[in-house]
């Protein structure tokens, strides 16, 4: 299998990480060597194996649906790079 530049551009779009040509070429090389290594898994037959989604063999505990924390607005907004009173500010999204 080979990951080409077109695929790198597609993944970069999905990942919301901008890549220029030079970076795309480097990434293609790195990802190809990593996927060559990952392909080893195809040696194994796994048709009848159940996928493992969690190693913790417990069921989630139920709790009552109550609000426990008080108003955290100031804490939530404190680290925002750009805010205006109660809002996070982002570049304009509607014309």
């Amino acid at each position, binding site marked *: 299998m080979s990951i080409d530049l077109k695929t790198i551009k597609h993944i970069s779009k999905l990942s*919301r990480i901008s890549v220029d040509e030079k970076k795309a070429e480097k990434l293609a090389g790195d*990802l190809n060597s990593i996927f060559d290594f990952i392909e080893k898994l195809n040696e*194994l037959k796994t048709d009848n194996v159940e*996928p493992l989604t969690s190693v913790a063999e417990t069921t989630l*505990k139920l709790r009552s649906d109550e609000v426990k924390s008080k108003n955290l607005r100031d804490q939530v907004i404190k680290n925002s790079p750009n805010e205006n009173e109660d809002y996070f500010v982002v570049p304009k999204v509607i014309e």
Partner: protein
Amino acid sequence: MSDITKQSLSELVENIKSKKLSSSEVTKAFVERSEKSKELNAYITEDYTNALSKAKKFDEKPNLDLKLPGIPMAVKDLFCTRDLRTTAGSKILNNFVPTYESTVTQNIWNEGAILMGKLNCDEFAMGSSNETSFFGNVQNPIDKNLVPGGSSGGSSSAVAAQLTPITIGTDTGGSIRQPASFTGTVGLKPTYGSCSRYGIVAFASSLDQAGPMAQNVKDCALLQEVISTYDEKDSTSIDFKRNEYSKELTKDIKGKKIGIPKEYRVDGMPKEIEDLWKKGIEYAKDCGAQIIDISLPHTNYALPTYYIVAPAEASSNLARYDGVKYGFRAEGENLIDMYEKTRSEGFGAEVQRRIMIGTYVLSSGYYDAYYLKAQKVRKLIKNDFDDVYKKVDAILTPSTPSSAFKIGEKTNDPVSMYLNDIFTVPVNLAGLPGISIPAGHDAKGYPLGLQIIGKAFDEQNILNIAYAMEEKINFKNNITDWWIK
């Protein structure tokens, strides 16, 4: 006492409890040594002034019933600490000041310990050498040209150099045990669900665990006893009966069955590692353990599985860094452009690489071939362990396939860097506890570690085996304080 920083955690606790030392004296000694040790680059953020004033406050009204009375401690910068910057080694969190405290660190402060600062680590804990940190690489106190391991490289360097009596790291694929092995220290990765993940910057949520890093097994047991609690804020935290690990620690391991997995004899394994392992087997026998040959047939598939599962989870966890709610933001022409520039400028190369791998294996058309496949192989790996634990109580392996390597030696070849974790990754995939203890030196005098892997929730047993073997091994670290100005 002039050699305060040479004392182990247990000695310091005893000396504070018997009032031979005050918290202020101890804190001052570690702060001064940390200040003289800047060259190691173990700290990202120092909080010495606050630490000294907290120590003074402790001494005014000392509560000597606590488990860590007035003990100063620096922690890996992956744990959120209220009002103290938490960066995860990344530019994207360079200015992040949490408004809440991680459960694990809160447990530590509740027992009387005092925060000295935040320790360097690979960016978002993604790395095996501490070289992916935005804040620069860390030096191994063993030798200035060596990496301290990773991702908890600041932590391992700081404990080995005695800048902090003990510390905590996190381990997703080996990030506690490998750096412990590279620096001649002890590191425990607890069972998944043992220590709360609340307030730890997430990397791969089904694998991440916090754990202690110490100079000896007893100290490690004491800290594990403090940090391991059930926590309703972490939905994967498990409510099981936890031991008082340090009190129940014993060197009596007579009759314990220890498995030696033949698949860990990997191609090209240096003879020094093979010899160390053989020596370890002899030590275990000397302690009265029974050695049994076992097979973990899917061992070779653990690393490829890990490099699907961990990046997949990371790509999902790291989607939150968008320049909107917190952290670094780059300006863009529109919202999407802002997202893309923020993430491109805010994340380093290794983190971007892993996000891309993860995004790819989860993307439409590839999910079954990669992610689902990996989850199935993960099941086979866990089954291997379940099978052997019908016959043995614990497993003994080397911690790493080599001793510490040189700074810059592996940065251009991601796969060779990933191979460092070949012996540690299966433990994370199966959610088991594992401890690395220093067990010898290679020809260059660099430390080498042995790993003891336990059954789930059986931390006490592997701590006991480590404690018994530690006495037989009688390891001495070769540290010369070359960095002290």
